[in-house]
């Protein structure tokens, strides 16, 4: 796009315009994604709880988010008396900016990235970890005890979970030998057994650990201690209303997708479908191929986001001490072990064994998924099993 623009505009202006367009695209994508995810979350939660979810506005209630949005925009922008007004106002934007900036370095397809960075993985991690600052500020500036608790909890939790998250990111990075996300994804092209998740037992475990830890660092249930309704009213969100409130949600869904996207780039082959022996971008031409790639990538990311939702409505919330000990006593040692393990695997395991492991893991997981699906399809919920209170 830059080269096209260069033909018509001075270089400097072209760059600014290109940057603006990229920012706009990313922002629009985040908006649309949040729009759909919020609807999706309500539908998923409804289904899990044996109800229908939103149905009234639009087909399947698809426009429910729009209606909510209109309501939020029109609400009064309320700032509590006695709060630090400046901080209270900027906190949601700090949080959103952090999540938004993470998308800058995320490649959606081969070369389809706002700013290609050599240290992409590192950058995404760094930026997403600064999202915590918005929450902390929100909690602090609200002049509300629950908010403060929420903020402090968030800070403690995210700072702790950052460690295993970074270590788990290092596991595929060790195999790839680069921090460039584009290169990492390109290395996984071809069939799905080339994905790094199936590379060896350590990456296989690392993927799950990373996913759980990422969920925690997005402060999603079961780790949503910062906004635990049953304990802290709504945590750092208590005093927020209207548009500022919705920015937090925008930030949350954005960072959920960013994390899922990072997971799919690092472990699940990025924009590679894993089913095609060729690269769509070369086979279908640049535009169509890249569109396919982007579609695949968004699909993968969204699938992981749906899993996060699924977890939220299936698992009970942990206590704060449990959250912390889970991280510091289990995830940190495990991820350290994984890092060491993957290095040892790379150095000392013969290539034949490594290749074999790849197929075993890939097809094993496939078989496991198939069996689970078949078993789930065959099992009908009986009245005894349907409710938690059915048995004393």
């Amino acid at each position, binding site marked *: 796009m830059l080269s096209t623009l260069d033909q018509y505009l001075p*270089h*400097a202006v072209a*760059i*600014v315009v290109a940057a603006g367009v990229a920012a706009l695209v990313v922002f629009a994508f985040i908006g649309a994604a949040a729009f759909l995810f919020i609807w999706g979350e309500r539908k998923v939660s409804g289904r899990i709880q044996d109800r229908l979810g939103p149905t009234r506005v639009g087909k399947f209630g698809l426009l429910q988010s729009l209606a909510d949005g209109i309501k939020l925009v029109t609400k009064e922008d309320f700032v509590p008396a*006695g709060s*630090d007004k*400046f*901080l209270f106002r*900027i906190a949601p934007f*700090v949080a959103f900016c952090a999540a938004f900036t993470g998308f800058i370095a995320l490649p959606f397809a081969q070369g389809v990235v706002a700013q290609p*960075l*050599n*240290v992409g993985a*590192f*950058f995404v*991690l*760094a*930026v997403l*970890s*600064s999202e*915590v*600052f918005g929450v*902390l*500020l929100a909690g*602090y*500036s609200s*002049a509300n005890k629950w908010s*403060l608790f929420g903020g*402090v909890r968030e*800070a*403690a939790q*995210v*700072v702790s979970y*950052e460690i295993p998250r*970074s270590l788990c990111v290092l596991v595929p990075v060790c195999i790839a*030998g*680069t*921090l460039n996300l584009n290169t990492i994804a390109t290395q996984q092209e071809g069939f799905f057994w080339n994905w790094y998740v199936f590379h060896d037992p350590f990456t296989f475990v690392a993927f799950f650990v990373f996913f759980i830890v990422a969920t925690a660092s997005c402060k999603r249930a079961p780790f949503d201690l910062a906004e635990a309704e049953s304990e802290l009213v709504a945590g750092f969100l208590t005093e927020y209303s209207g548009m500022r409130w919705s920015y937090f949600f925008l930030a949350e869904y954005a960072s959920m997708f960013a994390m899922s996207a990072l997971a799919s780039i690092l472990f699940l082959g990025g924009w590679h479908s894993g089913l095609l022996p060729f690269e769509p971008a070369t086979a279908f031409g640049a535009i169509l191929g890249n569109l396919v790639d982007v579609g695949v990538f968004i699909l993968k990311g969204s699938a992981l986001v749906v899993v996060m939702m699924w977890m939220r409505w299936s698992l009970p919330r942990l206590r704060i001490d449990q959250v912390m000990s889970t991280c510091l006593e289990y995830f940190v040692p495990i991820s350290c072990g994984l890092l060491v393990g993957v290095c040892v695997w790379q150095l000392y395991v013969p290539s034949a064994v490594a290749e074999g492991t790849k197929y075993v893991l890939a097809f094993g997981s496939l078989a496991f998924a198939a069996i689970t699906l078949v078993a789930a399809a065959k099992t009908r919920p009986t009245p005894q099993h349907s409710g938690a209170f059915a048995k004393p």
Partner: protein
Amino acid sequence: MTLDLALFVVLASVIAASAIGVVVAHTIVRSAVFLLFTLIGVAFLYFLIGAEFLGAAQLIVYVGGTLVLLVFGGMLTSGGPFQTLRVRRLEWLFGGFVALAIFAALAQVSLALGQRPTTDAPLPPGAGPLGVAFLTSHLLPFEIVSVHLLVVLVGAAYLARTRKRAALGSEDSASRRNGGTP
């Protein structure tokens, strides 16, 4: 004015403005927010100069770690909400004078340095060569930093450990309890 320069001017003004903000802010958390902007600005300045790895490191260490720690500390130690500690005007005056003097001296040195011919050297090496350097030619600093970090880890944990505060009377602890509510 090239694009680089324009971006630099924008970044520099953001950095400078928020640095001033750090100094003049009354409450500690506001200072921290301005410091956040300063640090992010510096990180982007690194990206602008071409030191990508350092920029990302600056973000993850300072913004994600140090600053959160500072705010945390501020929250743990503040006596009440939005507490400020005022400083006398004379101190401001004198401090400002010293800071100005330092700035003047450093600026003079900077200008003199800037007049020397500089070459537009190739971009600083990225993460890969840097990592190799850390394990070969610059192994000693790397080891020193590692040991230093370990020591700091132990030391900080030791310093900040909870101690039995038997010496404190009930009156004091009661006042502390009351101090928590606004």
